[in-house]
């Protein structure tokens, strides 16, 4: 993470306290919006083209507008800090290094949506983040920037930190709501969407940490400024969590429109020890595995959609040419098998069957019919799973089956025999 002049402007080991946040323009956006009609925020975010950074990339302004126009007056705001996508550490960074920028974003979004109560749902694995954000709320409250009658006006926001308890699925918004209500973190049928019937059945705005932390900068500097970063299709920047076989692992703020090649080589310094990049996993366990030939793709929603790449949470995990693709696939399937809630059959049984087939491949006892089966189960999981977890598990399998067919073939008994004959 390097100091830039975009959204986050923070070094990796730097903590921005309230004073330094204010000295760099912090809370000026909040002052700006509170002197205007709340519809100004929605319009500005729509003009800026801000999209959700948790993975689904839904237009933020539209979502806030949906809650703002609800007939029900009691509304909630929830900041989704249940960052669980393997390989992702951006929200953790914001919570522990830039808590006040996040709080300002939450305040502005809550003001626009008309919410006076809310939660930050932080995963249990991040105790230090829970502590930091709790402290930040206390400090901001003392400064009159949070809590009751913010900035001396009529707007109040009561915010609680809610700890998750170790469930990846709770990052899915309706599962998160179930969890907040004290139930198993299982997803609900949509519609109704949370914007209509969310927490306790009330209209609820749920946004990711990074999304909310973008808002103050957009309001402060304006939609035109924001659109000058990134591309026409995808304005702004994305936090990229870079890990795996590169020289410089870490968190980078990358403008949209940058190629994945540049992220791996310019930001990350390329693979170590003169190795070559074999594959890059984009979007974490629920993302895709793509070969190095596809690295010229741009980090941009349209460009990635055309090539069936999911940007997701922005996790980039590099595998060099010493790595085994199927080992990586097995790791992800084990992950999903553990995190599947068991509610629907395609995900619960699909993953179990896929795991059995992958073990057969590992022992080189699989047949080519097993590969056909794997294709079929993958499709069923993608098409018929109840929520994003099972669907994403299918997506991740599909890309490896497409690009690394030969490695799967290697696990087939007859193929292995023929090749050695």
């Amino acid at each position, binding site marked *: 993470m390097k100091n830039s002049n975009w959204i986050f402007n923070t070094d990796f080991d730097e903590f921005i306290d309230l004073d330094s946040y204010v000295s760099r323009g912090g809370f000026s956006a909040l002052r700006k919006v509170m002197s205007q009609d709340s519809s100004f925020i929605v319009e500005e975010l729509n003009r800026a083209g801000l999209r959700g950074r948790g993975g689904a990339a839904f237009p933020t302004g539209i979502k806030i507008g949906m809650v703002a126009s609800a007939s029900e007056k009691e509304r909630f705001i929830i900041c989704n800090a249940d*960052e*669980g*996508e*393997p*390989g*992702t*550490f951006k*929200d*953790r960074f914001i919570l522990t290094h830039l808590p006040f920028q996040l709080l300002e974003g939450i305040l502005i979004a809550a003001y626009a949506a008309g919410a006076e109560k809310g939660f930050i749902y932080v995963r*249990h*694995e*991040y*105790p*230090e983040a829970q502590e930091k954000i709790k402290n930040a709320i206390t400090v901001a409250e003392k400064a009159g920037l949070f809590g009751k009658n913010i900035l001396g006006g009529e707007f109040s926001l009561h915010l609680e930190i*809610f*700890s*998750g*308890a*170790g*469930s*990846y699925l709770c990052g899915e918004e309706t599962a998160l709501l179930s*969890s*907040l*209500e*004290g*139930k*198993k*973190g*299982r997803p609900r049928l949509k519609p109704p969407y949370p914007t209509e019937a969310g927490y*306790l059945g009330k209209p609820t705005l749920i946004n990711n940490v990074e999304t909310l932390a973008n808002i103050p900068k957009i309001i402060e500097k304006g939609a035109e400024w924001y659109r000058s970063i990134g591309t026409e299709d995808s304005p702004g920047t994305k936090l990229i*969590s*870079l*890990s*795996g*076989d590169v020289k410089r*692992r*870490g*968190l980078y703020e990358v403008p949209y429109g940058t190629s994945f090649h540049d992220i791996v080589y310019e930001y990350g310094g390329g693979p170590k020890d003169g190795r070559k990049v074999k594959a890059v*996993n984009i979007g974490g*366990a629920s993302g895709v595995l793509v070969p190095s030939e596809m690295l010229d793709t741009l980090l941009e929603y349209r460009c990635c959609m055309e090539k069936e790449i999911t940007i997701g949470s922005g*996790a980039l*995990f590099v*595998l060099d040419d010493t*790595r085994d693709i199927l*080992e*990586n696939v097995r*790791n*992800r399937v*084990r*992950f999903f098998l*553990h*995190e599947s*809630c068991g509610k629907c059959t395609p995900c619960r049984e699909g993953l179990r069957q896929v795991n059995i087939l992958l073990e057969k491949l590992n022992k080189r006892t699989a047949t080519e019919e097993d590969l056909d089966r794997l294709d079929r189960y993958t499709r069923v999981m993608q098409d018929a799973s109840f929520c994003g977890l099972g669907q994403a598990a299918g997506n991740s399998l599909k890309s490896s089956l497409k690009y690394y067919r030969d490695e799967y073939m290697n696990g087939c008994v007859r193929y292995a025999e023929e090749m050695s004959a």
Partner: protein
Amino acid sequence: MSMVLVEKASSLTSEQSHSLLPVLLEYQKKNPCNYISEENVKEIAEKLNLSRSRVYSTASFYSEISLVPRGKHLIRICCNAPCENAGKEAIHRAVKDKLGIDVNETTEDGLFTLEIVNCLGACYMSPAMKIDDQVFGNLTPESAVEIIKKMEQTDEE
């Protein structure tokens, strides 16, 4: 039962049940064996006016809540791809050898329980593990064992 009564009863349950997860975590923290005992379930059910099966249902769903006794310190080794590729298996073996226990087991002195965990958000310093609330990264088998030895010493003092 009149509709008014039904509504009153249902609002009571929803009001009380949404504090269930924080209450479970709090009870677990206070339990010296780091888990939710049958006694705890009974008490929570009574206090929140919920059925015991309802409390179990939530408690059993989440990985961070244990229904069996655990050690004083929880050692969690990350098992996701970035840590696996960075040598998690060797760390895992070294820690298992050091403690003489397998995953989900507790040392005889009740000091450590070994678990595996999904992504700690520390992939920039993989392989990583977490002991209680602290994350340790860039581990080698030697440094992981060293960290545990230090904890043993601090506990003796």
